[in-house]
C-alpha cells in the first residue's frame, strides 16, 4: 500500500444551449461554416459594447441550484486580460470576483456503496473563445463562431482523492447539468471540457504537493487514464527523491500517458478588473424562486418516480436516467399510453443495443417516441406478438409508422378461436404422447404443444389465446 495521498481538483467548462451569445446577438450554433455566426462584437471591433444575455445568467443560476450551491446576490462582471488570436478583445468577460454560485456539492455513489460529497468551490458564467486551427505550415486559422458562446465554469474543491472518484464526479456532474436542460454536455462536441489539477503528497504532509495541470481531456475515460498515469508518475518521482515541477501536461491517448506541454514560470497575470461596460446585477429572492421553479425534474426525482409510479427496479430506473434524452423519450412513450414496464424493457434492451450498434445518440436516430409507443401498444393489445415486434422494431428504426407497417406486411396476430381451434386439434391429433403426458401431470407438455402451434402458424398465433384453447381442448380429450 502506498504512503501517498492524491489531491484532484477539476475545472469543468460547460457550453450553454442559449439561442444567442453571452454578450452579443449572434446565434449559438455548433457546426456552421467558419465565422458565419459572428458580428462586430464577436470580432472585438473598435467602439462595440457588450450586452448581457439574461438566459445565460439564468442558466448559471440553474447550474448553481442543481449543484446545491449558494447564489451570489451582488454580481458584477470582470475582465480577464490575455492576448490570443481566438480572444478578439484580448480579454474574456467572466465573473472572477463574484461567481454566480459558490459552496455547492455533488454527491457521488462509490462502487463499495458508500457516498461522498465532492465540494463545488464556485461556478461562474463567462464567454467562450473562438477556435484556432493549425495548418502545420507556419500559420493558423481563426474561426470566431464559438467566440462569446456562454459557458459555466464549475470549479470543484480539491477533495477528489482518486481517478475513480474523478470519473464518478464527472458522470454525476454531467447528469445533473444535463437534466437542467442548460447544456448538451457532450465531450465529443466540446460542450463539456475538463481541465485537471492533480498533486500527490506523502500521507500526513501538511502542504499539498505541487499541482500539475492536464488540459483538454477528451473523455471521462481519458480523464481517468490520465489521472491514473499522473498519480503513478508523481509517486514515482517523489519516491525517487525528485521534485514535481509546476507544469502543464496533456494526455496522450495511444500511450495512455501524459506529456509535458510547458513549464509554468510563476503565476499568470490576467489583470482582472470589474467590467465597466456592463451594469451590476442584484439577484433577489423572487428571482431565485422563479429560476428554481423553472428547473426541470432532476434525475434523482425521476428515478424515484419511475420506481414508485411504474414499479421499475432501481437498476432499470438508473439506466433510463443516464441521459436526459433517454429519460425524456421514456416519459413520452409512457405518456402516449404504452405499458411502462414493457417500454422500460424495450429502451434498456433493444433500443440501447441499437444505439450501441449504430453508435448514434437517441435524438440522431429515426426512432420517435410515437412510433415506439405505437409498437408497444400493438403488443399490449395483442395485435402483434413480441416475436413479430422484432420486425416492427427494425422497421421503426428506419422511420416507419408501426401500425401501417404491420398492416402492409400482414403481421396481424392470429387470435380468432374459430381459426385457431382446428389447427390446435390437428396438432393434438398428431401428438397423442403429449396428451398422455399432460394427463399424467407433466405441465411441460403444454409448452411443447404451444410451440407446435406457433410453428404451424409461423409465429403469428396469439400465445395467450392458444394457451386458453389448448387447455379447453385437452380437457375434452
Amino acid at each position, binding site marked *: 500500500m502506498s504512503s501517498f495521498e492524491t489531491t484532484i481538483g477539476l475545472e469543468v467548462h460547460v457550453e450553454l444551449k*442559449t*439561442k*444567442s451569445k453571452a454578450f452579443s*446577438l*449572434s*446565434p*449559438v450554433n455548433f457546426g456552421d*461554416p*467558419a*465565422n*458565419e*455566426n*459572428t*458580428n*462586430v462584437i464577436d*470580432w472585438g471591433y473598435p467602439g462595440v459594447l457588450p*450586452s*448581457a*444575455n*439574461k*438566459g*445565460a*445568467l439564468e442558466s448559471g443560476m440553474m447550474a448553481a441550484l442543481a449543484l446545491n450551491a449558494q447564489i451570489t446576490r451582488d454580481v*458584477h462582471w470582470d475582465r480577464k486580460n490575455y*492576448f*490570443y*488570436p*481566438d480572444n478578439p478583445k484580448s480579454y474574456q468577460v467572466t465573473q472572477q470576483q463574484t461567481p454566480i454560485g459558490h459552496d455547492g456539492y455533488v454527491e457521488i455513489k462509490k462502487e463499495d456503496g458508500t457516498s461522498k460529497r465532492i465540494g463545488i468551490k464556485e461556478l461562474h458564467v463567462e464567454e467562450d*473563445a473562438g*477556435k*484556432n*486551427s*493549425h*495548418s502545420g*505550415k*507556419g*500559420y*493558423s*486559422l*481563426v*474561426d*470566431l463562431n464559438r467566440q462569446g458562446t456562454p459557458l459555466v465554469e464549475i470549479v470543484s474543491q480539491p477533495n477528489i482523492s482518486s481517478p475513480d472518484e474523478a470519473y464518478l464526479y464527472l458522470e454525476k456532474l454531467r447528469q445533473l447539468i444535463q437534466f437542467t436542460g442548460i447544456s448538451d454536455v457532450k465531450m465529443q462536441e466540446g460542450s463539456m471540457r475538463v481541465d485537471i489539477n492533480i498533486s500527490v503528497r506523502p500521507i500526513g504532509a501538511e502542504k499539498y504537493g505541487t499541482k500539475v495541470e492536464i*488540459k*483538454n481531456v477528451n473523455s471521462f475515460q481519458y480523464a481517468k487514464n490520465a489521472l491514473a498515469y499522473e498519480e503513478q508518475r508523481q509517486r514515482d518521482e517523489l519516491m525517487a527523491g525528485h521534485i514535481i515541477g509546476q507544469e*502543464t501536461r496533456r494526455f496522450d491517448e495511444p500511450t495512455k500517458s501524459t506529456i509535458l*506541454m*510547458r513549464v509554468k514560470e510563476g503565476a499568470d*497575470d490576467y*489583470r482582472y*478588473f*470589474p467590467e*465597466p461596460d456592463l*451594469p*451590476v*446585477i*442584484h439577484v433577489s429572492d423572487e428571482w431565485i424562486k422563479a429560476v428554481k421553479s423553472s428547473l426541470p425534474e432532476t434525475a434523482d426525482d425521476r428515478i424515484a418516480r419511475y420506481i414508485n409510479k411504474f414499479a421499475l427496479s432501481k437498476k432499470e430506473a438508473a439506466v433510463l436516467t443516464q441521459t436526459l434524452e433517454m429519460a425524456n423519450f421514456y416519459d413520452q412513450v409512457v405518456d402516449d399510453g404504452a405499458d411502462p414496464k414493457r417500454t422500460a424493457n424495450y429502451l434498456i434492451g433493444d433500443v440501447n443495443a441499437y444505439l450501441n450498434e449504430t453508435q448514434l445518440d437517441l435524438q440522431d436516430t429515426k426512432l420517435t417516441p410515437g412510433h415506439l409507443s405505437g409498437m408497444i401498444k400493438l403488443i399490449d393489445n395483442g395485435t402483434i406478438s413480441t416475436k413479430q415486434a422484432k420486425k416492427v422494431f427494425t422497421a421503426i428504426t428506419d422511420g416507419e409508422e408501426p401500425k401501417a407497417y404491420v398492416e402492409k406486411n400482414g403481421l396481424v396476430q392470429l387470435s380468432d378461436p374459430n381459426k385457431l381451434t382446428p389447427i390446435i386439434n390437428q396438432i393434438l391429433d398428431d401428438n397423442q404422447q403429449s396428451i398422455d403426458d399432460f394427463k399424467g401431470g407433466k405441465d411441460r407438455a403444454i409448452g411443447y404443444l404451444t410451440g407446435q402451434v406457433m410453428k404451424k402458424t409461423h409465429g403469428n398465433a396469439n400465445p395467450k389465446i392458444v394457451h386458453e384453447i389448448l387447455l379447453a381442448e385437452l380437457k375434452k380429450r
Partner: protein
Amino acid sequence: MSESLPREDAAHVAKLAKLHFNDQQLNLFTGQLANILDLVETLNEVDTDGVKPTYTVSDNINVLREDVAVKSNQKNELLANAPETQDGQIKVPAIIDEES
C-alpha cells in the same frame, strides 16, 4: 506602494502589454512613469479605510437582454477588413503553444 518604477518592472509590464522598447526608450519611459507614479502617490494622503470603491457611476442594475438571436450577415465585410484570411477564416502566424 513603490517609490518609483524599477526598470525591471517596466520591462515586465511592457511584456504583458505586448510592447517593445529599446534601452533608450525604456529609460525614458521608466523615468516618465516614475514621475507619474509620484503624482499618483499623493492618493496615499487620503484615508480610504472602509470606503467602497466606485467602478462605475451608472445607476443601472440588472440591464439584461432577452435571449434572442439575430444573424448579422456581416461575415464578408468583417473578413474584408482582416489583414489576411483563408477559407473564410482569419490567418495568423502559427500558434505553437496551444492552449484553449
